[in-house]
């Protein structure tokens, strides 16, 4: 009986020593002359258990984790002696992977294949349903594909939550000899890693989604704009594109038809603002990443002035799922106008961080308590930042808010790209507010004054507040400055930097030294 070992090779597993674990397992297999294979898979997204080693026996996969190289010998011993691995009593044994509650309680649509096999194996991808969405798309009209996306209720997963089908319809309806599909893979929000995980663990799904988008709107060229901070994803994507070309899933004869679509990865260069779609387009054109005024919409005048679909990695990934299983299946998940699933990325000071794909509507408290099991430090949670560096800091009174785009905007917060960063009670929220302004200073493209200058003034005003210089007036001034930034900035960078600042000031004023002053 051949054993199969699975050792992840995504960034987080590698950052925790997965390569050393793999070397140790190879050595143990050789020295014990075991009948065994090793697969380097993507990650299941249970990052606190990485490196998560799985062993497949009789079609069942059992997990051990975290397995560092010194643990390999004892893990191998326990596998060798157990007739029924389900009875294993090794301290790192986690039972059947699919039954681990963190995993079993998720609703995986976009990430259903993540971590199951070698991310670059085309046979594995197709055996798990891959490219059947593309084949469905090839058999229907462009308008029918767009209608499926509209019916699914899929909204942009990058943060803005714009209905994908409406964007696609605009591009389809705009005639042009050249159109483009651009994938926004500039996942710069702190606390987010879902795009990275999908690209590293299931890259063909993104490629498939982009080809489908091309068929839907009549585009023949695609670009993945990938941030340079993701070297592992870069290598995997380039390999996946080359293999897709060889197998006619990209190129001049998609699946043997006369339809064509070419795809290229372009690297960003360390500018957060290039995650904003118009700045991204400027960057793709080889220019400074300066935000464009809208209109014209990119769907009408986008890359090189041509009609362009710009969608996030997860949006395009979900497209494959919608076309595979049908839009009705997809829209059955979720609440209100937020249909389908949200890839919650649980991060920061949390015991069990990772990727949690769930239907919209789950509360923040369920995520951090049920899945996260509290803080990594063991101290009480003080604040949770949702939606990256432009998202609000939420105090405990707001943790029962369901994760739904509209409900979050009603409390002046945003889901954004789904990042959830937990802070324990040692966090200084005034310092976090200052950092939000500082970050805007570093990353503003500089096009509009409220963002470029406002952020610098914001740092200064916060410093005056925390140093108790004319505090009352400076608090008023900070609110006025935030008003100016919110109302006067072209894009979300300047327009939403006030969210973390104001939420910190409103809910944690004692950190700014405001209460203590009043006590005197």
């Amino acid at each position: 009986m051949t054993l199969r070992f699975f050792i992840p090779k995504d960034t987080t597993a590698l950052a925790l020593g997965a390569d050393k674990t793999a070397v140790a397992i190879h050595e143990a297999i050789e020295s014990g002359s075991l009948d065994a294979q090793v697969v380097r898979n993507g990650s299941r997204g249970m990052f606190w258990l990485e490196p998560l080693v799985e062993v497949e026996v009789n079609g069942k996969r059992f997990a051990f984790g975290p397995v560092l190289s010194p643990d390999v010998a004892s893990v191998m011993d326990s596998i060798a002696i157990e007739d029924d691995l389900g009875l294993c009593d090794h301290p790192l044994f986690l039972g059947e992977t699919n039954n681990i509650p963190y995993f079993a309680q998720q609703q995986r649509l976009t990430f259903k294949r993540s971590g199951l096999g070698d991310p670059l194996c085309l046979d594995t991808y197709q055996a798990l349903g891959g490219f059947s969405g593309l084949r469905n798309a090839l058999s229907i009209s462009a308008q029918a594909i767009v209608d499926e996306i509209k019916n699914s209720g899929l909204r942009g997963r990058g943060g803005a939550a714009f209905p994908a089908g409406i964007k696609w319809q605009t591009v389809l309806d705009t005639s042009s000899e050249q159109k483009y599909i651009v994938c926004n893979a500039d996942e710069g929000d702190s606390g987010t890693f879902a795009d990275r995980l999908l690209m590293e663990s299931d890259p063909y799904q993104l490629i498939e989604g982009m080809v489908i988008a091309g068929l839907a709107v009549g585009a023949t060229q695609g670009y993945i704009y990938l941030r340079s901070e993701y070297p592992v994803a870069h290598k995997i994507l380039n390999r996946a594109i080359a293999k897709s070309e060889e197998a006619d899933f990209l190129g001049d004869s998609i699946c043997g038809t006369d339809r064509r679509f070419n795809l290229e990865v372009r690297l960003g260069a360390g500018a957060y603002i290039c995650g904003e779609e118009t700045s991204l387009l400027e960057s793709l054109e080889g220019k400074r990443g300066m935000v464009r005024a809208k209109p014209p919409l990119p769907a009408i005048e986008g890359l090189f002035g041509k009609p362009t679909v710009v969608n996030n990695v997860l949006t395009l990934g979900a497209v494959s799922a919608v076309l595979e299983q049908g839009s009705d299946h997809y829209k059955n998940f979720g609440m209100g106008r937020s249909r389908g699933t949200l890839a919650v990325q649980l991060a920061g000071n949390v015991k069990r961080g990772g990727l949690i794909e769930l239907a919209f509507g789950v509360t923040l408290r369920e995520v951090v308590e049920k899945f996260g099991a509290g803080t990594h430090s063991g101290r009480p949670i003080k604040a949770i930042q949702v939606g990256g560096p432009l998202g609000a800091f939420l105090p405990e009174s707001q943790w029962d808010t369901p994760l739904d785009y509209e409900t979050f905007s009603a409390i002046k917060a945003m889901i954004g790209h789904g990042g959830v960063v937990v802070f324990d009670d040692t966090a200084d929220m005034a310092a976090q507010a200052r950092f939000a302004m500082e970050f805007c200073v570093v990353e503003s493209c500089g096009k509009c004054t409220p963002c470029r200058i406002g952020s610098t003034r914001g740092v200064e005003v916060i410093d005056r507040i925390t140093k108790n210089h004319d505090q009352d007036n400076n608090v008023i001034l900070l609110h006025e400055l935030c008003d100016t930034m919110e109302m006067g900035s072209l894009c979300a960078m300047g327009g939403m930097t006030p969210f973390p600042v104001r939420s910190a000031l409103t809910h944690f004023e004692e950190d700014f030294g405001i209460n203590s002053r009043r006590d005197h």
Partner: protein
Amino acid sequence: MLDNKKPLEQLIESYRTVPGGLLPLLHEVKATYGYVPDYCVKPIAVALNLSVAEVNGVISFYHDFNTQPVGKNVVQICRAEACQSMGSRDVEDHAKHVLGIDYGETTKDGMVTLEPVYCLGNCACSPSVRINDDIHARVDQSRFEELINDLQKTVTVTAGAGS
């Protein structure tokens, strides 16, 4: 070493007609030389039909395109929120102290250039540090020192093997 480098003209030629080719070209220049030297700007501008100011404008906009040589190893510490929640501010202070340099500087022996970075996408296992193309998770002060010591060892081994 110099012989292995593609000449600048050849690099420029391979991107001259690529749509939006300036960024990939600058990445290639950086990969070849370790930085974007001043003397590249004019030939690039001429070949891509841009002004020198436009090329300089692009270089200065992006954090990645350093115009001065860097050390043998580039060490980036994540400054973003998830890492802050796990104590990265202490790691930053410690790193600057241990290396004796600030962000944007290189150690006297040319071993390490220290840079800030805003998110490496490893936020569930913070704090994160990138050393060249390797990302490391859960890096506290003592782990940071280990990683730096490992860099020194690598140099010794390589030097020994070469002699």
